[in-house]
């Protein structure tokens, strides 16, 4: 069995104010994986990644990066790690190229080695023309790409991307996806991604973990997770407006607009059946799309279920105390 790129055992974090952000999580990310760590805000994603990157101090537990225990030799483990944080964390007044080259220096890379690597990264990420300007002059998307270039300068084997495409327009997001796919496939870089765009996780990642209330509630492959989806909702655009939603035997139908219906499809049901019934009633469908991303529906239902479980447990505790 190969050593995982990241191995976490019993990771616990209790902040100074007593808030328990992580409740002893276990997680393995295989080498070469494109892994999504999902969860609602405040679930513990950033705390987990913060501990892995040494920005947050853990309370208990073990973290190993490529088999190197961070408690034993964090410096050595850090050579394998590249980090793209959620927030911009570079000096806005420095030149783009200087920011990337300084990071190379922090890893002990000599300038003659760092310069060509930096040039290549800036070219690949469309920042070459901006290299001599101050970072504050970059657009939001460019700043995100600058952080990717900076994170990759020392050729890390494990790249952590904490919401790398937040606030980035669709075209740029797609080009960033292509770039991430490329470094994962061609250079074998293991990538851990957190994102709120579940379409992104579905499109890019092979494995996925969902974290909520400081616990891993799901850890599986994206493919397997999607098979758990019980219901998918499609939006149907109609050729002609209708006064009220037509009745389709066996399906739930809701009228969204006069010429748009929301059709819920449970596991085992066939769209053909719904279309046949609509056709019999003289209703023509001109186009169709998912109401939400499939993973998003699953994520929402899973997190809601877990929230209900936590609320129930808390209510039980209060009752026991009173």
């Amino acid at each position: 069995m190969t050593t995982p790129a990241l191995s976490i055992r019993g990771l616990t974090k209790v902040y100074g104010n007593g808030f328990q952000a992580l409740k002893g999580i276990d997680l393995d990310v295989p080498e070469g994986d494109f892994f999504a760590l999902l969860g609602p805000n405040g679930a513990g994603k950033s705390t987990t990644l913060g501990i892995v990157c040494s920005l947050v101090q853990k309370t208990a537990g073990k973290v190993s990066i490529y088999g190197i225990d961070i408690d034993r030799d964090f410096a050595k483990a850090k050579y394998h790690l590249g980090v793209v944080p959620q927030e911009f964390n570079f000096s806005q007044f420095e030149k783009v190229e200087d920011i990337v080259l300084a990071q190379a220096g922090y890893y002990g890379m000599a300038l003659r080695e760092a310069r060509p690597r930096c040039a290549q990264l800036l070219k690949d990420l469309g920042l070459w023309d901006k290299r001599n300007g101050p970072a504050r002059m970059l657009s939001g998307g460019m700043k995100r790409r600058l952080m990717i270039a900076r994170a990759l300068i020392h050729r890390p084997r494990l790249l952590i991307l904490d919401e790398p495409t937040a606030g980035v327009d669709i075209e740029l997001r797609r080009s960033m996806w292509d770039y991430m796919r490329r470094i994962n496939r061609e250079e074998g870089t293991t990538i851990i991604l957190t994102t709120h765009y579940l379409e992104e996780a579905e499109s890019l990642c092979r494995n996925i973990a969902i974290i909520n209330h400081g616990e891993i509630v799901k850890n599986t492959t994206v493919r397997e997770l999607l098979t758990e989806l019980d219901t998918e909702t499609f939006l149907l655009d109609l050729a002609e407006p209708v006064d009220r939603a037509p009745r389709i035997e066996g399906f739930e139908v809701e009228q969204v607009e006069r010429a748009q219906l929301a059709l819920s499809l449970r596991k085992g049901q066939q769209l053909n059946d719904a279309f046949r019934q609509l056709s019999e009633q003289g209703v023509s469908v001109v186009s169709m799309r998912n109401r939400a991303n499939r993973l998003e529906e699953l994520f929402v239902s899973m997190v809601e279920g877990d929230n209900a479980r936590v609320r129930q447990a808390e209510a039980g505790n209060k009752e026991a105390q009173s």
Partner: protein
Amino acid sequence: MNPRQILIALWTLVVKEVRRFTRIWPQTLLPPSITMTMYFIIFGNLIGSRVGEMDGFSYMAYIVPGLIMMSVITNSYSNVASSFFSNKFQRSVEEMMVSPMPSWVILGGFVLGGMTRGLGVGLIVTLVSLFFTDLTIHHPLVTVGVVTMTAALFSIGGFINALLANKFDDISIVPIFVLTPLTYLGGVFYSIDMLPDFWQGVSMINPILYMVNAFRYGILGVSDIPVGGALVAVALFIMAFFAVALWMLERGKGIRS
């Protein structure tokens, strides 16, 4: 990191720091030159000509070492305090924290950067002073040694201040309310022999008095205090401050949740 990588990392930090304060030279290098020129003209020339001699030197010659030292102290301190706090504020300190650089390299890089600015401004002020007085250095080794150690000590002090600071106001409190009064009372403009016994005693607990006098001894060859003891005291302070700053950095004080 191997020794070569450590040197590269340290050099990177120092170059980055020097680049920062030279990029904003109208805020960092120009103001002390102008302020000190004013001191030389007003205190040294206009008022000094009426004060007469002090410890056998013209008043202008007497205050030059103190004013050079004052520039070194404030610039070393404020360079590291504002630069490291800006790194905290902009979160660019995370660039260093995620890297394999040992804490002592991070501390050393900022301290060397602060010393470079402190000594650089000290040199500018020295050059300006040459327009007003002749400067012959009595003990070059003592002069260079004490000014370098002072720059190191106050750079480390600025680093500790930045680690503890939560807002920009917090990095100006110490320079305004501690460093400036201590420097003025540290015998920059007068010999403590002029003070009544009680205030002479009080002055002896002011560490800046020792640095100013040791530096004055290096340049003029006169001092209110024993120079050897002053040098040892400064060296001990440097070691203690460095240990405290390193301990705070290792524990992530002010920078790690």
